[in-house]
């Protein structure tokens, strides 16, 4: 892809203060992350629970919860740095040109308003149309996200919905303005496989028809390998590997990515103890100067404990940050 990326995150660092023996110190939960998302592109972000995926997503819309703060970096949307925008302009982008499907349903939905009114409001904030027209639009979209009694859902309060219905209402709210960039944080975790497939089809339709780009955060490697163009793998606030999604099974090189792929349960693994990665991520690993995965890595070298590998050049299709893997040039 030669054209300028739609979204370009450059050297982003986000920290939360943590208590240490002598006062406070910064814990970087997003640590020097750079990635490019092209127009019409679908990039999946997978990785450790707690590796900073949600925090990175929230940063694009200026929604980092305090006391977290951005220490460094840029987030360019169509070349414009979102981090320098004032509140009013950010609000213009939010929900309209960039929208987000929150992982946490409680931040997305107001418990005191009906679901229909909330989706409607999201539309009216940025567009003008008659109430009846917008209501039709909303009902229509609710059907598209797989809801078969949209009138009831429209008039329901969030607590009256099942987990998956609520999740679909949030998806509808994010899509109602046909954003250029959709950030979807675990959007299908409460959906059964048939509805999940239907929603992904809808997203693909929107991506094709309106050129929407999607940053898709998920833990489901199988899903990601089928749905996305590219996959970024995160661990402890860092990107470990970025590669074309279809290559994840056969061409991934990072020990962490390869480790994850070997862990999936299935009917064939019944009765067996599942393999898991040895050890766990400790605070020292995060604060260490070396690679945060070093203490759990099967191919660890001495250098890994003292120097953190950097991600190879963003122009290559396959990037990874690992001392133990020969560079692409050496591979050729």
């Amino acid at each position, binding site marked *: 892809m030669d054209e300028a990326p739609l979204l370009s995150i450059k050297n982003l660092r986000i920290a939360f203060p943590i208590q240490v023996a002598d006062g406070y110190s910064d814990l970087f939960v997003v640590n020097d992350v750079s990635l490019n998302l092209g127009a019409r592109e679908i990039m999946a972000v997978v990785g450790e629970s707690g590796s900073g995926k*949600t925090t990175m997503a929230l940063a694009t819309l200026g929604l980092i919860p305090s006391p977290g703060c951005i220490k460094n970096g840029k987030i360019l949307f169509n070349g414009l740095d979102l981090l320098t925008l004032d509140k009013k302009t950010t609000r213009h982008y939010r929900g309209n040109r960039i929208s987000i499907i929150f992982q946490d349903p409680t931040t997305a939905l107001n418990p005191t308003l009906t679901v229909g009114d909330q989706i409607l409001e999201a539309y009216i904030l940025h567009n003008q149309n008659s109430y009846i027209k917008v209501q039709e639009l909303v009902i229509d979209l609710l059907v598209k996200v797989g809801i078969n*009694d949209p009138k009831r859902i429209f008039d329901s309060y969030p607590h009256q919905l099942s987990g*998956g219905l609520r999740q679909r209402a949030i998806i509808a709210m994010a899509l109602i303005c046909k954003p250029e960039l959709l950030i979807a944080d675990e959007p299908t975790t409460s959906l059964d496989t*048939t509805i999940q*497939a239907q929603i992904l089809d809808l997203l693909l339709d929107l991506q094709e028809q309106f050129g929407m780009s999607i940053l898709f955060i998920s*833990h489901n*490697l199988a899903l990601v390998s*089928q749905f996305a163009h590219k996959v970024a793998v995160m661990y402890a606030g860092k990107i470990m590997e970025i590669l074309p999604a279809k290559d994840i099974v056969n061409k991934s090189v990072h020990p962490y990515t390869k480790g994850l792929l070997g862990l*999936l*349960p299935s009917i064939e693994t019944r009765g067996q103890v599942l393999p898991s990665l040895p050890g766990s991520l400790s605070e020292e690993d995060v604060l260490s100067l070396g690679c945060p995965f070093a203490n759990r890595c099967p191919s660890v070298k001495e250098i890994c404990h003292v120097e953190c590998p950097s991600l190879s050049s963003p122009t290559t299709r396959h990037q990874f940050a690992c001392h133990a893997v020969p560079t692409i040039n050496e591979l050729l």
Partner: protein
Amino acid sequence: MNDTNLPIVVVSNIVKRFYNRKPGTIGRNSWVIEALKGVSLQIRRGEIVSVVGESGCGKSTLAKSIALLLRPDTGTISINGTATNSLSRNDLRSLGQKIHLIFQDPYSSLNPRLSAGDIIMEPLIIQKVGSRGDRINSVVHALSDVGLRPSDFNKYPHQFSGGQRQRIAIARALVSNPDLIIADEPLSALDVSIQSQIINLLMDLKKKRNLTYLFISHDLSVVSHVADKVIVMYKGHIIESGPAESVFRTPLHPYTNLLISSTPELGKNKRKLCAQRVVDIELGNDKNFACLFYKHCHKASEICHFQTPSPDSESFLTDEHWAKCHFPGHVQPKMQNSS
């Protein structure tokens, strides 16, 4: 009492309705929804029973009913041989202590004013187990079991990621040492590494403590690994039930088949995932068909229109594995002209 084959939970024919009536409005905004339309099941001690099914089909409602948090409108639930319909609130509460429900939503189910450590410790305090020191020990132990750090003890829920909150809820269930854990999508926000660690832990506890689980999940790969028995629900009904291997290898109901075949597979690059749409575009008028799956079923025939399928002889694969379908598994309807 030492009969271990006695089921720990017996649910017979429960119906649960929710009403929505806005004060002052007649008709327009009011509706009744029947979330459970006559559900019966048994859970035996030491068994992992998994409930899968359409989003909104009543799984969480079933979970809350068995956890004694919702009272069904009709039907009965017995726990350890005690019918719960006529129990007083106090008796219900003491019976309920042996059942632990992990809620579906890890965001709103944790008390935001308590630290992670206190949330996990709460059941121990309620049950008056051990000294404060013992309790802290068990909590620290549970934290490491679910892949969290001892330093997480003093953090509050909002300081955790989605998956970390889910693990706090799991740790809380583990320390409370119940007979039955009802887990509603307990692993949905976890990466595969933590997920496999926790699956191993749950399986281990099942062996060691003879724990019983009711495990609700949309992730069929996880279910096929852990479950002894699978129950498939659709629109408030159980439509198929059987031993996990049998259900996954030879599904009987077309809906089960559809669920299994829509599961994404690693490394297969098919851009369009969904071949078959399962949504009624006409609004909610499926009441007219005897079989609820009629409109989406490629096998639907005349009989499905007017006769409700029941698990009668033709729908059995074995005694244990049955489905509510006139044409289960490979049984095909006779060709007929539909006009």
